[in-house]
Structure formats: structure tokens, C-alpha cells
């Protein structure tokens, strides 16, 4: 302390000796608990074992376990670099990017698009889209709550909590079947007060991979109509689930046909591999164009004090690809290739487990869809996988199938069999 005081006097800065500013304002700040999902990757990176496998975070890997930049994206970047300026986008983001993105969710020839009934803004990937909607819900339906499925992506809870929208849950996953708890789900929809807000995963439910069938979606939509509920779709995996973007949007199309005025969060993180570019879109279907203009203006009012306007680079990539028929076709091929590889790994993992003579049923691995498999393993079994086999996943037993390769599927199956064979 004394030497610092001398140093400071030498510099001509007077030392204020009041005790107040000598101590930190932040002494009472507790260390935050680690994010459960991202913490897995941190632990994986720190592990020196040559056998380690990361089936934790949901980022696509090729069959060599490497991250992949799509060719259509590389080409788009080549076209953009050196040609575009970096001026601010409008608060609602790139109009072109939003237009193309809405076509994906709502259909190329959607009446809603023709009639300009959709209020939509570019958002910071799926997270940003959900957060903007949650803030909008708080501001314009302050008395409302959000019903969130059990289980769901952990960050959903954080988002609506930080937006100060109270949360409730609804039944979704049935551990006994490792499938959908449809009866309880329908009960919860019926018992919720009329006009409740529900968060629905449009396809490839995260973390379970369990989606309602088309028939079940129709029943859900019907019951929503009866109750006047609001459906907010989080669609983070369009194209990535079945390989066909149109098919993956089926749930949304069913709701639109039934006349629901939905909200929708879309993300290009996985299906265009744009993870770190933070590319997404928030849309809200309105009664007419006038209302859509009003809603969009209010969404912008929420974005302005958060980040002013969204990033331009990723938006240019998306609009370059989707605006060019050749590039768009290339993209569709690459999305299908990613989805097919994952479906292939599901089959391989299940077959390996069955060949090992596992006493348990592993049907759910191929019944479930999308990036994740809800294995049904307990936290203790997951810990064994990590500690004994250097296999990293979240403790809820969620396996990111994107991290499975022909090179490690045998090792993974063997390890899972080891920790589960005694039931």
C-alpha cells in the first residue's frame, strides 16, 4: 500500500485515502455456476486422453469429428468479401434475409407473406429470437405466463426468467417409453387457463429428440384452438431433422392452416452451420398488414436498447445463398447430407448396442429425431462414462449424435453397454 502511494504521488496523482474506494464494490459477487452444456466442452478440452469423445454440445461434426463449414457458405463468403460495405443494418435487420427466412418457415407461396401479415425481425440466432419475443410478451401481455415443456433446452428457462415472464411447465417426455407423454400433454393443454402462451419445439425436440406425430400435432392444434392458446414455435433444426425443410416445418404449417396466429423463432446456427454468426429471425403472425407494421416497430424498440441493430455479415451469407437458386440447391443438398449422416449414426449406434447383447431396448435411438438422443441414462451412469471412458455429455443423458462418427460409434456403444448392462 505504502509503495503504491509513493508511486502515485510521483505521478502527480493525489491519493484519496478514504476507505470507501480502497475496497472492491464487487466483494459480494458469488462465482456463478457453470453453464451445464458449455461446461461439458470445457471439461472435454481439458482431458488429455486420446480416446476422449465429445457428445455434449450440439454442433455438427463431420465423420472425422471435425466442424464443417458448408461449401455454399464458403462460396457466399467469397462473393461478399471485398464487395460490401459494413454500414448499419436497420434495427429490424436485413429485409432480404428476413424475407427469405420467412419463406422457409411459412412456405414459398404463403398467403401470410403475400398479405404482409407477418411482423418479423432479424435476431441473434435462436436465443436472440426467443429473448426478443419474451421481452415483447412481457411488455404487451404483462399478465401472461409461458408454458415450457419438460424437459427443454436449459437456456429457455433463463431467457423467460430474465425477461421476467413467469414460467410453468407442461408434460412432454415419458421416461418409461422414452417417447412422448401425449395423454398428459393434452391434459395440460386442456387444464391451462384459456389464452395461455406455450413454447413448442417445431421439430427435433431438444434435448429428447421426441417429436409428436403429424396426427398428434393436429390434435394439439385443435385443442389450442378450443382453448385459444398462443403457440410460440422454437425452430432451431429446420432441415436438420428429416433432411427436408418442408417436412420439418409441418407442425407450423398445421397450426397456420388451423388459423393460429403463431410466433416463431428460427435459427441458422445448425442448418447452415452459421453458429458463431448469430443468425436468426423472430416472426409474429398478425391479423393484417397494419398490425404487422405496428408489432414490428415494437420489436425494434426492444432490439434498439439491447444491441441497436443486428450483425450484417451472417445476414449477407444467408441472403446470398437463399437468393441464388444454385446456391440454395447446394445448401439443401448439404443439409440433407448432414441429416442423413446423423440418421446413419443413430442406426449404427443402435445396431452396435443390440449386437453387444444389451438387455435394454434401444429403439428410441432411431425413433428419436434430430441432433440429440435422450439415452435414458442416469447422471451416475453418465459420470461413469466420463470418468472411466472419457466420454463427455450432459448429465441428463443427452447424446449429441452429431459427435458420433464411424470411428467412435463402436467405442461409444461399448462404453454405454458397460455402464448400463446391469440395468
Amino acid at each position, binding site marked *: 500500500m505504502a509503495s503504491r502511494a509513493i508511486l502515485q504521488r510521483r505521478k502527480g496523482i493525489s491519493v484519496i485515502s478514504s476507505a470507501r474506494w480502497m475496497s472492491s*464494490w464487487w466483494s459480494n459477487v458469488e462465482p456463478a455456476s457453470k453453464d451445464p452444456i458449455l461446461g461439458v466442452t470445457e471439461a472435454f478440452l481439458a482431458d488429455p486422453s486420446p480416446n476422449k469423445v465429445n457428445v455434449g454440445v450440439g454442433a455438427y461434426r463431420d465423420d472425422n469429428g471435425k466442424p464443417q463449414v458448408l461449401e455454399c457458405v464458403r462460396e457466399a463468403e467469397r462473393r461478399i468479401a471485398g464487395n460490401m460495405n459494413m454500414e448499419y443494418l436497420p434495427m429490424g435487420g436485413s429485409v432480404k434475409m428476413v424475407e427469405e427466412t420467412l419463406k422457409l418457415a411459412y412456405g414459398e407461396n404463403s398467403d401470410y407473406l403475400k398479405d404482409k401479415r407477418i411482423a418479423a425481425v432479424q435476431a441473434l440466432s435462436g436465443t436472440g429470437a426467443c429473448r426478443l419475443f419474451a421481452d415483447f410478451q412481457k411488455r404487451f401481455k404483462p399478465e401472461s405466463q409461458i408454458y415450457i415443456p419438460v424437459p427443454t433446452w436449459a437456456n429457455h428457462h433463463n431467457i423467460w426468467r430474465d425477461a421476467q415472464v413467469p414460467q410453468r411447465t407442461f408434460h412432454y417426455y415419458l421416461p418409461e417409453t422414452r417417447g412422448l407423454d401425449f395423454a398428459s400433454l393434452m391434459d395440460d393443454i386442456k387444464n391451462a387457463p384459456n389464452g395461455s402462451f406455450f413454447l413448442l419445439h417445431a421439430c427435433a425436440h431438444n434435448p429428447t429428440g421426441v417429436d409428436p406425430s403429424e396426427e398428434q400435432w393436429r390434435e394439439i392444434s385443435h385443442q389450442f384452438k378450443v382453448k385459444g392458446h398462443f403457440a410460440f414455435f422454437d425452430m432451431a433444426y429446420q432441415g436438420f431433422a428429416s433432411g427436408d425443410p418442408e417436412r420439418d416445418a409441418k407442425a407450423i404449417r398445421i397450426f397456420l392452416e388451423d388459423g393460429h*396466429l403463431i410466433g416463431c423463432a428460427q435459427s441458422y446456427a445448425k442448418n447452415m452451420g452459421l*453458429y458463431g454468426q448469430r443468425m436468426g429471425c423472430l416472426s409474429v403472425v398478425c391479423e393484417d398488414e397494419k398490425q404487422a407494421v*405496428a408489432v414490428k416497430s415494437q420489436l425494434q424498440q426492444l432490439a434498439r436498447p439491447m444491441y441497436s441493430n443486428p450483425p450484417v455479415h451472417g445476414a449477407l451469407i444467408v441472403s446470398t445463398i437463399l437468393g441464388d437458386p444454385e446456391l440454395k440447391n447446394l445448401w439443401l443438398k448439404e443439409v440433407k447430407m448432414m441429416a442423413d449422416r446423423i440418421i446413419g449414426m443413430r442406426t449404427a449406434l443402435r445396431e452396435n448396442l443390440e449386437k453387444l447383447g444389451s438387455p435394454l431396448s434401444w429403439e428410441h435411438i432411431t425413433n428419436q429425431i434430430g441432433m440429440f438422443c435422450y439415452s435414458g441414462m442416469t447422471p451416475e451412469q453418465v459420470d461413469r462414462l466420463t470418468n472411466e471412458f472419457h466420454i463427455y455429455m450432459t448429465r441428463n443423458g443427452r447424446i449429441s449424435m452429431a459427435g458420433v462418427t464411424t470411428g467412435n460409434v463402436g467405442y461409444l456403444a461399448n462404453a454405454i453397454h458397460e455402464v448400463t448392462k446391469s440395468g
Partner: protein
Amino acid sequence: MSPQEESDCPRFDQAHSFSSSDRRISALVRHLTVPTHASPMDSISAAPTSAFGTADSVFAHVVQAPEDPILGVTVAYNKDPSPNKLNLGVGAYRTEEGKPLVLNVVRRAEQQLVNDRSRVKEYLPIIGLAEFNKLSAKLIFGAESPAILENRVTTVQCLSGTGSLRVGAEFLARHYHERTIYIPVPTWGNHPKVFTLGGLSVKTYRYYDPATRGLNFQGLLEDLGSAPSGAIVLLHACAHNPTGVDPTLEQWEQIRQLMRSKGLLPFFDSAYQGFASGRLDADAQSIRMFVADGGECLVAQSYAKNMGLYGERVGAFSIVCKSADVARRVESQLKLVIRPMYSNPPIHGASIVATILRDRDMYNEWTVELKAMADRIISMRHELFDALRARGTPGDWSHIIKQIGMFTFTGLNSEQVAFMTKEYHIYMTSDGRISMAGLSSRTVPHLADAIHAAVTRMG
């Protein structure tokens, strides 16, 4: 409704539905159909939002928000057909030819990134690109800053200045014992909203003196002096927006002493480092004085203007703490603010910045281009001042060359501004703020004529 029942419902023939009202009617008809297998309970629903019939929006009550005052200027400018129109509204740099500018060094960095096939687009960590964070801290605090050497600084990548301010505000609202932030009058229009939505309440302190078109230093000292102990104070690190009026170094020293004696917490907004004087270190002096006394502070940094990265949304938020241990804990809590907002920041712009800052040659090239931008603005100030003097425009216009940074607070009132827009097609915000970056040698005479006319005819 099963598919079978749907097909029994009467519906408009889609092929004949051309207009939007036709389509709406056909949709309504589909929705009005009652399924035969519905249970009695299904139709007993008293709530107005339920069931068949028109799908009323739950957001029908939402009214249109007013236009952003600053961005609205550009909207009006774009509509004007006059060949003489001049946009002095939004604060983005323009060349002498009136074009947006991408720095050469930025193009170089971009090419490097594109050509590097090993680069991927994976998620950044929640707090962003580590190298970017380190380099940003060095840029603003100085590479040899004791705070950095002692690991007392936590820096997280955020979405430009706005994002940095918002993350900082949310952190303060959760972890700081005082919920009030004092902002100068005037300040950037978005500041109050950022802090309010971040969970703080906003009060003001006097800053600009319209009589002198300079700093109301006495008022500033009085207002900060009467703020409650521990209150947060927003300070523009340099090139105050919108006035261009900055304290001198001596005045900064007095502000520092006052704030430290009252335990007021400094929150710096640094949007123009290097852009104000043309020198990066000089423009960071105010912040470095506060760090040098060993105390704590918060800093929001933007690369929008000084690296021309506007739309890439590149910025950094730093907290200078008392100890490395505190800095670590603070960083972990910042992650909890960021994750439910956007998970992790965009990679592209931060990669460009890191590429430039880590390479000695590119860094030097950047400082040269930065100085050129700052110099062009300073020369515009002098040209405008000279032009007004040459016309004998009444009044003291020396503030044009005394103020610093992108903006000049002309002192013109809203009637004079409206006059200039109507008669001379000059677009600026109604508070009399002009963006010097929007001027060129070619257009200065037109602006000088307009100001002269406004002052002499509208007094």
C-alpha cells in the same frame, strides 16, 4: 379435426382467391367449421380468445412505435428528390465523395479470414473471442496498465457499444448496491433506454452550456457532488455525443477526485477512441486516469466508428476490479447475463479486429487510416468555421472548431433546423446536431449558406 372431416368442409376454391380479402374470407370459412366428433366440453368456452371463428390476435392492442428520431432523419433524406440535399444526420463516417468507407486494413483482414480454410464458424465462448478481449483491454487501458498486468480486468466481447452498455447495466442491476445511473444532459438518445431496460433508474447531471456552447463545469461538479454516495455515473470517454464538448485534462482530474471522494462508480462509454483527436492513447486518457488511481470502473468500447465496422457489431465491455479474484467472479456473472440474451457474440467482426490488433504492420496501417478520418473531420470543422466567418454570419462560431469528434452541436434551434431542411434540403436532428463526417469541401459552402440564412432570417 381429422383429415376426413376437413375435406367435408365447404371452402373457397383456392384457385379463384386472388385478393388478400378473398384469401382472408376463405381462411375464415375453414376456421368456422365445427368438427362432428368434438366433445361437448370443447365448445363450452367462455373466453373471448377461444375457439372457432376469427383468430383474434392477442397483440391487437399493440400500437405503432414512433420513428427513431435519428434514423428518421435518413428516412426523410432518402425521400427528398433535390440534387442539393445533404445528410448530416446519422453518425457514420463518409468520405470526401460522401461514400461509406471500409478501411483498407479491414479489407486485408477480411481477405485473410476468407482465404483461411481452417477457419470455422463455431460458437464463440459466451464472453467472446479471448484474443479479441485481451487486445481490446490493452487498446483502451494501455498495454502496460497495472490493472491488466495484475489480472484485475475482466473483458467480455459484446455487440458494439450498445451491447456493452446493456450487459453492463444488467450486471449492475443485479450485483451493485446502487440502482441509479447519472447521465449527462444531453447524451446519445439511446442511453436512457439501454439503462432503463437494463434495470437501472436514470437521473441526469448538467453537462452542456448552451450559452457558451461548451462545458457547464460548475453545474457538472455540483450535480455529481450532490449525487448519493455510490451512484453510477456515465461518462463519455472522449468526443461527447451529441455535443462534441469534452472536459480538459485538468477538468477530468477534478472530476476524478470528486468521484473518488464520493465513491461514485464511473461507467465510461468509449465509442470514438482514436477518432476524436486522431491518437488512440490521447483519446483514452480520461479512462486511464481513473484506472491509474487504483479504483474500479466500467468501460464500454465500440469499434463501429474507429474501425468502420458499424454493422458487424463489435465491442467490448470491461470491468476494472480491485483484485484478480474479484475479476474472475465478476466474469462468471457476466456470462449469466449474456447467455439468456444471445448466448454468445458474433464471430466475424471480432475476428477482423483481432487480426488487425495482433499484427504490428496492420495495427500501424490502421492508425494511419484512423488519423486520416479524424483529420478529414477536423479540416471540415475549419472549413465550415472559415466559411461562416467569410459570410459574416452573426454569432460566435468558434465552438465548431473547439468541439471534437464526429458531431457539432451548432446551437441552432428546431425552427432554424426545420428552415434549413425546407429551404436548403439539409437533414440533421432537430437538436441542431450535425455530423461533420457527412460534410465535404464541395458541400461546406451550401451548409454555410443555409446556416447563414437560418441565423439572419430566423434570428
